[in-house]
């Protein structure tokens, strides 16, 4: 796959699968291209005890309720806007990660077009 960012070796893992559904993500108001950059691309030198492969991914949720709950729970995310993404297999690979069963890490391919996003609510 032609990745949007140069990924570490063996990243994503063999457990990652093709997306084929709607997912939700938090972003800026108005949405910005950098909302779809990985943590590592935005902060090249920040190290925070996070697996390096995960640092190159983007967080997604498979449930609108889960992302709304996240906004209510985390003050830093409360003012973010929720965007919906209709991901196809060509858009990259995803894998469930973290303690929340609705949270997925997404490794973005160059195929993904940010114009495809739909703003749900701010």
């Amino acid at each position: 796959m032609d990745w949007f960012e140069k990924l570490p070796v063996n990243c994503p893992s063999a457990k990652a699968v093709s997306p084929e559904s709607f997912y939700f993500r938090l972003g800026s108001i108005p949405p910005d291209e950098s909302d779809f950059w990985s943590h590592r691309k935005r902060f090249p030198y920040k190290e925070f005890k996070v697996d390096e492969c995960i640092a190159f991914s983007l967080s997604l949720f498979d449930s609108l309720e889960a992302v709304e709950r996240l906004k209510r729970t985390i003050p830093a995310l409360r003012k973010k806007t929720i965007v919906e993404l209709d991901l196809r297999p060509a858009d990259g690979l995803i894998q469930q990660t973290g303690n929340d069963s609705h949270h997925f890490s997404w490794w973005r391919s160059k195929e993904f077009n940010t114009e495809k996003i739909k703003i749900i609510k701010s």
Partner: protein
Amino acid sequence: MIVDLHLEETLIFHDEPQLFSATDQIGGYYICLAVDDTPQYIAVAISYARLQELKLGKIDLWSIFSSPELGVWFKVVLAEKIKLIGELMPAGEKIPLDWLPIKGEYLPTMAKLRPEAFEGVKISTIAKEAKMNPTLLRQYVAGIKQPSHDQALRIQEALHRVAQRLLDSQFV
């Protein structure tokens, strides 16, 4: 008062840790919550028992941060690389209300099947033991599909039976 903190466990993640537990130099527990994008966190010291209550969904996050057990808050910044510095907020200073989680919000549910539990075994072996389609079990382990409580129990029992057979094996 300044404390050096070490991240122990990320409890909520969105692009980076948003809520995590940490320990200080003498093993005391803290819980740290992201309050802005810089990122800046607030932290409170927390007893092991209360941390477990939080993880088990018996207490909400608002209660943890609005009424800290020691009655004080720390401002936490990422100083350099992975170094976290917690600085005690002045006595009598309250945290802004918009730094608190909304009342009644609990930690998100844990994934039913932890993928690491399956690292040392063949998925097909566990699926056969559980009388389940291996493809379906792989989807559960990858988090693509979520098993019901009964299915998760069935898989857990199958995993335990296989593990017990391994424990029972003797060669010398």
